[in-house]
């Protein structure tokens, strides 16, 4: 059970990789940032006895905030759980912005909500980092999570803009 949660948090850390941060310099804003320690989540193959060397080990125990059992799902992760991961250092190139901490809500084992509960704001050189950006999810990352995009909702495109859209690519894939 604990290992399953660790694996999920590792997925979440993978997502957080995509977080881009507003920085003091306009040039570097909205650039993806690298997350040091992100690979530490790959400990699902370990026997789980020692999670202490993993920087993405969930620190507090999962807290249950909803129904904890359901008649059809007797096994793990039924109901709603909220898990807070430990802080992970965030850096871009050689700059270190600080740490980020993610809280994930699981409903019947699936991620239903992801909230950054801490974000980089403690680096005096990047004091303008006070809010994080909405991450960019690419089709590749979503596919890796097992999510296939069927349709795209976005600001209304013109006929011309459609040709360049992701929706157009999805339409081409169908008969």
């Amino acid at each position, binding site marked *: 059970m604990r290992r399953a949660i660790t694996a999920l948090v590792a997925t979440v850390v993978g997502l957080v990789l995509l977080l881009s941060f507003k920085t003091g310099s306009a040039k570097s804003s*909205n650039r993806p940032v690298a997350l040091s320690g992100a690979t530490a989540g790959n400990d699902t193959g370990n026997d789980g006895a020692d999670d202490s060397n993993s920087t993405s080990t969930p620190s507090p125990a999962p807290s249950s905030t909803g129904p904890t059992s359901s008649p059809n799902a007797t096994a793990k992760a039924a109901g709603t759980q909220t898990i807070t991961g430990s802080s992970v250092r965030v850096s871009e190139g050689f700059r270190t912005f600080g740490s980020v901490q993610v809280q994930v809500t699981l409903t019947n084992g699936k991620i239903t909500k992801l909230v950054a509960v801490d974000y980089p704001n403690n680096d005096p050189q990047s004091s303008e980092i006070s809010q994080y950006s909405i991450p960019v*999810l690419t*089709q590749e990352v979503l596919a890796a999570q097992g999510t296939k*995009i069927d349709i795209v*909702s976005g*600001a*209304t495109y013109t006929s011309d803009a459609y040709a360049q859209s992701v929706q157009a690519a999805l339409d081409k894939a169908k008969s």
Partner: protein
Amino acid sequence: MPPTTRRLGHVEHVMGTVVSFDISADDSADVNADQRPIRIAIARAVSWLHRVDAVFSTYRDDSQISRLGRGEVSLAACDPDVAEVLDLCAQVGRETNGYFSSTYGGRLDPTGLVKGWSIQRASELLAAAGVARHCINGGGDVQAVGQPEPGRPWNVGVSHPLHPSGFAAVVPIEDGAVATSGTAERGAHVLDPFTGRPATTLASLTVVGRDLTRADAYATAGLAMGHAARGWLESLDGYEGFAVAADGTGWATSRFPATATVSA
């Protein structure tokens, strides 16, 4: 052996945008060799959308809505759909505390509601014709029915307004609607009716709900509200919202059903 699921598509340029049809059907039961019943249903829905365009387009001087706006024709002489749409506009105007308006620049212009309403109607036409599993995307506004494959919902990618090739969230829906208003494609075209100025605080606002008529109009009205849309959407039953602000930050209402998102 379980039937294989086949996906049929159709793309129609209409109403100044592109409408994509995505039909899911079991090879064995729903689709015969030439897919005729489904193709006929799509053709009827497409014909409906072109009729809506002819009646409601504000880009056509001879449309009923243009002539009504110039006072050349009475409401009673118009297609009954015109009265229905104007009545819906009045309802949505009240529901949005006046942020939804059926005029634009002083002209009668219910465009902010017509697209969602017409796509929802097109979806109802497909369902009535027995096309039980389908999804229609009207230039970014989505109405979905059923499931694309047994056991999973339609996954609607919410386009990231600042990174158009990527997504800001993924919304899984069966029988529901997802509408997004934003400045990414057509610029700051939504006006705050109280100031008359373009709404620029939010880069996009996505509204999820049961029916696309209101989801679309609410997304437009909420974009005009800016960050105040968050509290307003929280106060509604059955509609949730997700916003990406022009500075790249964002928020979601407490029950927004995204599978992958970050909220403040």
